[in-house]
């Protein structure tokens, strides 16, 4: 079993000791549940540890920098010192990665691999993972996702991937294939503007602590913080359960 590295969210790390180094963590949830901010914590932890990191996002770099400032994460300084690479999907992936020539690796993956190896990047956030894995026909999904995850394994980088909540049957199949191959799967849900609910759906090697969702909130200057005990009851009672929670096998 791989060693662990802190995810960057103290209340999660205190319970689970972080996530597995060199493996993939999946974070999924509805729009507005905080997946991008969650990914920013993961990047910020790399900066704290002195590691190089890469964030590939659908958001514009300027917007990511503004958000990082809001949550007290020094992304601009890290970019200036080459510790952090911020990329926009729109600029990075110019070929249509997932829909054509799925027999071949997309050129963008070659470039991503080169960037990670040449710059000694240790952590990567793919916010979202969809452009790499959303292919048709769905019958090819399993092989495609298997190949993607194993290629990331070979690079040896620790990856956090975000995924929107599936709203179609095909999207649910995609999420389930990803979840099967990721070592950790986390669902985020939002109760209201500031309150969130974090549920660990899968954590390889750790079956305990998975049953209770963690009530949390997003605060300026901090990002994700654990909700105060007074509000936890209310939060957990009103949060909707993550999809398929009971049917997922936890090994």
């Amino acid at each position: 079993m791989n060693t662990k590295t802190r995810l960057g969210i103290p209340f999660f790390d205190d319970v689970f000791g972080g996530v597995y180094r060199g493996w993939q963590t999946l974070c999924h949830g509805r729009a507005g549940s905080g997946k991008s901010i969650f990914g920013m914590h993961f990047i910020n932890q790399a900066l704290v540890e002195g590691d190089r990191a890469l964030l590939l996002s659908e958001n514009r770099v300027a917007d990511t920098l503004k958000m990082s400032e809001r949550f007290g994460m020094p992304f601009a300084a890290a970019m200036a010192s080459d510790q952090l690479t911020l990329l926009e999907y729109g600029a990075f992936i110019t070929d249509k990665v997932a829909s054509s020539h799925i027999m071949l690796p997309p050129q963008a993956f070659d470039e991503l691999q080169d960037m990670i190896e040449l710059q000694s990047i240790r952590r990567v956030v793919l916010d979202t993972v969809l452009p790499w894995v959303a292919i048709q026909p769905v019958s090819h999904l399993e092989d495609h996702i298997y190949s993607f995850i194993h290629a990331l394994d070979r690079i040896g980088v620790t990856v956090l991937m975000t995924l929107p909540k599936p709203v179609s049957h095909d999207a649910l199949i995609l999420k389930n294939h990803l979840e099967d191959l990721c070592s950790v799967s986390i669902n985020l849900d939002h109760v209201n503007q500031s309150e969130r609910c974090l549920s660990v759906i899968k954590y390889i090697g750790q079956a305990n602590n998975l049953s209770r969702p963690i009530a949390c909130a997003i605060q300026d200057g901090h990002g994700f913080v654990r909700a105060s005990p007074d509000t936890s009851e209310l939060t957990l009672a009103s949060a909707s359960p993550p999809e398929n929670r009971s049917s997922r096998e936890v090994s």
Partner: protein
Amino acid sequence: MGTVLIIDDESVIRDYLATLIRRLGHEPVTAATAMAGLEKLADPDCQLVIADIFLPDSPPPEIWIQQLAQTAAGRMVVLISGAPSQELNECATASGITTFLSKPFELTFIRRILQTAFN
């Protein structure tokens, strides 16, 4: 510089790998069928073989893997496939083949394998 045999029925895969191999300074040789592949593998100049597990004329994969391993006789064999089953992995390992590359993303790691094999 080494000679690398590529056995795959998909021309797009053969062309992609041949281009990569040539760019890295090695000599690619290609075969589109299992039978043609085994014939070319008889040439001792082929130092490494990259072979698809499922070819239209290949025997069941367990047999095909054994044939490849026996004909390669000590030379490095890299298998390419979709997601290999546990049984195929075990069969390959039993035949002394330890490198599987899944299509499409892991094909890029041919670069690393060639560097290791020919350095």
